[in-house]
């Protein structure tokens, strides 16, 4: 006996089911995304207590956090709009600063990427300009802590002014004026990331200061992911 689920009937049934599946998925996708696309809200007044506590008394020089003679260097490739970078900054950075940077064992260099969108570059130029006043890490930390949805219009001059005015000792006007002069630094970061084969953020390289850096893949966003590589170099 011939099964009823054959021939044109089988094709028609598959076609109808396929339309139902795809239609339901597309409808759910469109509904969900419109829920999530609320108008960007400008951040309220910033609380810089955590940032100040994290960086107080730690030397900064341009893009580098920590003593210049620290034996080990960690390079962070980050995009200021990347949520994982923000999570890493919340979870891992305070631990690394307390355990390694403050005691003078580690220096951390920030190499900014701007691949998520134009707002990444807006923020990065300001951070690099703050680096001329040795305040890059304050601006980066505050932007990560107050990060908005990527390319939603959150990273504006207004945001940068708000962030800048929360950093003690930073000349905000000078930072904003100097942004245009950061193209070479931006290109340097991009070239260094390309040379290291960096294809996502956050990514890390570790090595002896002044020596050869090697990429350290991370399995999680806590300090434990980088500890073995840093400890191995310190024990050397």
């Amino acid at each position, binding site marked *: *006996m*011939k*099964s009823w*689920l*054959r*021939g044109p009937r*089988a*094709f028609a*049934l*598959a*076609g109808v*089911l*396929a*339309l*139902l*599946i*795809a239609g339901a*998925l*597309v409808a*759910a*996708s469109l509904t*969900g*995304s419109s829920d*999530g*696309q609320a108008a960007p809200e400008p951040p309220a007044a910033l609380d810089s207590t955590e940032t100040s506590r994290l960086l107080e008394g730690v030397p900064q020089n341009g893009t580098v956090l920590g003593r210049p003679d620290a034996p080990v260097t960690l390079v962070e490739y980050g995009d200021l709009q*990347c*949520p*994982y970078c923000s*999570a890493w900054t919340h979870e891992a950075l305070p631990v690394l600063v307390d355990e390694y940077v403050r005691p003078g064992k580690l220096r951390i260099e920030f190499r900014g990427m701007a*691949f*998520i*969108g134009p707002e990444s570059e807006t923020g990065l130029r300001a951070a690099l300009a703050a680096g001329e006043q040795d305040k890059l890490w304050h601006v980066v930390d505050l932007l990560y802590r107050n990060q908005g*949805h*990527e390319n939603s219009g959150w990273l504006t001059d207004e945001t940068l002014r708000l962030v800048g005015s929360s950093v003690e000792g930073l000349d905000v006007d000078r930072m904003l004026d100097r942004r245009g002069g950061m193209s070479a630094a931006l290109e340097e970061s991009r070239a260094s990331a390309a040379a290291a084969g960096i*294809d*996502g*953020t*956050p*990514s890390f390289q570790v090595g002896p200061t002044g020596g050869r850096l090697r990429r350290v893949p*991370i*399995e*999680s*966003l806590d300090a434990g992911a980088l500890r073995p590589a840093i400890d191995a170099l310190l024990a050397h």
Partner: protein
Amino acid sequence: LSDGTLRFCIGALASAGLLVAGYLTYARYAGASITCTTGGCETVQESSYATVAGMPVPVLGLLGYATVLATAFLVSDAARSAGAALALGAFAFSAYLVILQLAVIDAVCDWCLVSDAIVTVLVPFTLLRLSAADRRPAR
């Protein structure tokens, strides 16, 4: 092509899809960075379109590929129809996602494109399996 060969091809393609969806699911939940040649994978994964009804798209892919794989193990008219329906539905949804990447998100995830290619190749195999059923005794 025999039904056995078609089932093998469908099973192999669904397994490849499972690997891709599994990797993206792992990256999402482990917070690991995605190896990406286009530089857009994380932009796509973190966009508001990366979840459907609260479920991350890679998890949806895992479920879809697992179901197609299951139909490859089953020899019945219902399994043939279900496989073809899922492949066609996934193909249409993948096309929608490609349009989103190009026109709305403005970033392309190469892992998603690999999955799209797998789904595209799955469609003719599942349809061939459906039409081949007419030449076999009913089960």
